[in-house]
């Protein structure tokens, strides 16, 4: 009796019964006896252990197997998220003849399971970032330099201990058009413009972006002077580098698009920085001097205008006054012209009295009257004045 180690009992076949299956799986076959005249028996003999094992598996696990099969078939169903695009590679080949059919939009995507289909998701909306810092000192070096600068500002008289040369293999810089040296650093943000080119043609897109930006910076920087770069051409330099780098990426059909390129650092070598500071100080001093001169000019002109106005005002006032007095004289003449001789004399006397009264009232504190001695016929007289008469006090005689 054949027994297997499963849960089923297989009775021995009848020795005289013949069927291809029984020949294949019968005891004679189990003993390795070649039965039948065709070569197919040999194949069946070789495949027998596999078939037996499969049969046992199917008998015991057919429902789980079915479930696994269904799951496997469903594993090709994919959800393409917002901000993504998907490419389907069927046996490694891109499915579709044109970008419209090759690139799948967000949503449900039906594909065969691996290894038949492979779905590549490409994040087309995600902004990636790379820092191009090979044209600058290292961060550690800058920390050392900044420490030295702080020491210099705290102790202005001390000689700075700044590096007097640069090893190009260890630290980077831009060589400017006037053979100057400037250190720079860029922050580049980019995204995928062409999913097919990005996913299938570029092995290391970050390296391509870095190379495009760095070579653009070297080329543009070598056409500008150091003072232009550090001065008012800085933003122009930044935009030229971006446009040149983007042109390179387009020429190479990279599928990458630079969204922004920012010049995060641009500075002369540390050894030159004190000289740069001196130039800035000189500019500030010149500006201050000009401002002071302009302020002086404004003040002097304003003052002169004021004096001129005063002079003219005084002249006008004096002219008006003189004219007014002359007119008053003339008016008096006109009024006297109407009087007879007696009235004229009386009027003149009255004018005299009025004038004396005004004078005496005005000088009342300083009037001294002296009467001549009666009977003295010499006609001479002597006047004695005291300090008080002269308005002098005893303290300032």
């Amino acid at each position, binding site marked *: 009796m054949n027994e297997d180690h499963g849960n089923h009992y297989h009775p021995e076949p009848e020795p005289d019964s013949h069927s291809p299956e029984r020949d294949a799986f019968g005891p004679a076959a189990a003993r390795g006896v070649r039965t039948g005249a065709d070569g197919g028996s040999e194949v069946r003999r070789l495949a027998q252990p596999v078939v037996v094992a499969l049969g046992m598996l199917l008998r015991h696990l057919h429902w789980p197997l079915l479930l696994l099969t269904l799951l496997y078939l469903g594993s090709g169903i994919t959800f393409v998220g917002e901000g993504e695009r998907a490419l389907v590679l069927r046996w490694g080949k891109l499915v579709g003849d044109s970008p419209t059919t090759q690139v799948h939009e967000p949503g449900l995507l039906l594909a065969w399971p691996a290894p038949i289909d492979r779905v590549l998701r490409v994040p087309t909306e995600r902004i990636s970032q790379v820092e191009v810092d090979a044209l600058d000192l290292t961060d550690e070096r800058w920390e050392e330099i900044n420490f030295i600068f702080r020491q210099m500002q705290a102790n202005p008289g001390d000689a700075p201990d700044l590096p007097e*040369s640069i090893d190009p293999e260890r630290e980077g810089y831009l060589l400017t058009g006037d053979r100057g040296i400037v250190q720079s650093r860029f922050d580049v943000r980019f995204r995928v413009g062409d999913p097919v080119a990005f996913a299938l043609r570029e092995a*290391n897109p970050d390296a391509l972006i870095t*190379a495009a930006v760095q070579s653009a910076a070297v080329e543009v920087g070598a056409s500008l002077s150091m003072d232009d770069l550090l001065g008012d051409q800085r933003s122009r330099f930044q935009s030229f580098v971006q446009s040149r780098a983007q042109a390179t990426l387009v020429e190479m059909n990279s599928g990458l698009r630079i969204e922004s390129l920012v010049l995060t650092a641009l500075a002369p070598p540390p050894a*030159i920085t004190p000289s740069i500071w001196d130039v800035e100080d000189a500019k500030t001093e010149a500006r201050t*001097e000009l401002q002071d001169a302009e302020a002086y000019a404004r003040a002097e002109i304003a003052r002169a205008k004021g004096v001129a106005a005063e*002079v003219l005002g*005084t*002249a006008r006032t004096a002219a008006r006054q003189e004219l007014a007095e002359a007119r008053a004289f*003339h008016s008096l003449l006109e009024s006297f012209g109407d009087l007879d001789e007696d009235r004229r004399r009386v009027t003149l006397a009255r004018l005299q009295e009025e004038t004396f009264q005004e004078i005496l009232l005005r000088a009342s504190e300083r009037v001294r009257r002296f*009467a001549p001695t009666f009977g003295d016929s010499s006609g001479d007289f002597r006047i004695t004045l005291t300090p008080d008469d002269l308005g002098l006090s005893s303290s300032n005689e």
Partner: protein
Amino acid sequence: MNRDTFRKFTGAGVVLIILLSSTTFTVREEHTALVTRFGKLVQQADEPGLHWKLPWPIDAAREVDRRRRVFATRHSEMLTGDQRNLVLQSFVAWRVADAALYYQSVGAAEAAEDKLDGLVTNAKIGVLGRYDLSALVSTDPNQSRSAEVQAAVLAEVAGPALEQYGIEIERVGFERLSLPQSNTEAVFDQMRADRKKYAAEFRATGEAEAQRIKSKADEDKERLLAEARELAGRIRGEGERDAAALLADVHSRDPELFETLLELETLDRTITEDTLLLLLTGGNPFRLDAEDPGR
């Protein structure tokens, strides 16, 4: 279909899968598969998709990545046509064009880039010797030949790279233009001297311009005052002229009245609060005080 038949079909399917997995291989987009039979190259599959081979260990399939790669060469010091030292570092964008030759000559990307580094460096030395430094570094746009130099380097290396290594070089660019370390000291000295000159120029220019502004302001001020004085003189003169005309009329019509009025006017103007008046009281209007002399 009875259970037995189902089992047979399933079994056959599994066998088929096992057989297929060992006799097929997939070639991805931008890749090439090289099939070797007992180590000898017998097939090159460039088209993406499913391909056939004999099962291992008879046939073995090896995939070659044909996507574009970018690497940076080493720093190399070289001499320009005008005998100036320059340290150059380039980037090279390349891809596998002939997978079989690539596999046989270099085999892997790292080895390929090592070979390309040497090729490109030699080309740069040769090309740069034909150009002055100003072709790469100059503020004069008419002198710049950067694109031309890079194209010349590419032209020199493209052929040998393809023929020797099966590599297509797409682009060569200059990632770094530097000076040898020993030269940078002299550059720094020159930069410092230039900055010192600029600072002195700024100060001198500022001083001169300030002085010019002040001098002009003084000039304008004097001119304003002189004009004002001249005008004031004219105004006074006109006033006096008109007044004199009126007074002359008074004098001509009544000289006695004119003299009297003038004397009174003079007294009124000249005697102030500070004037000491010495008056003889023998006459009007003081004759009533004659009995009290010296008061």
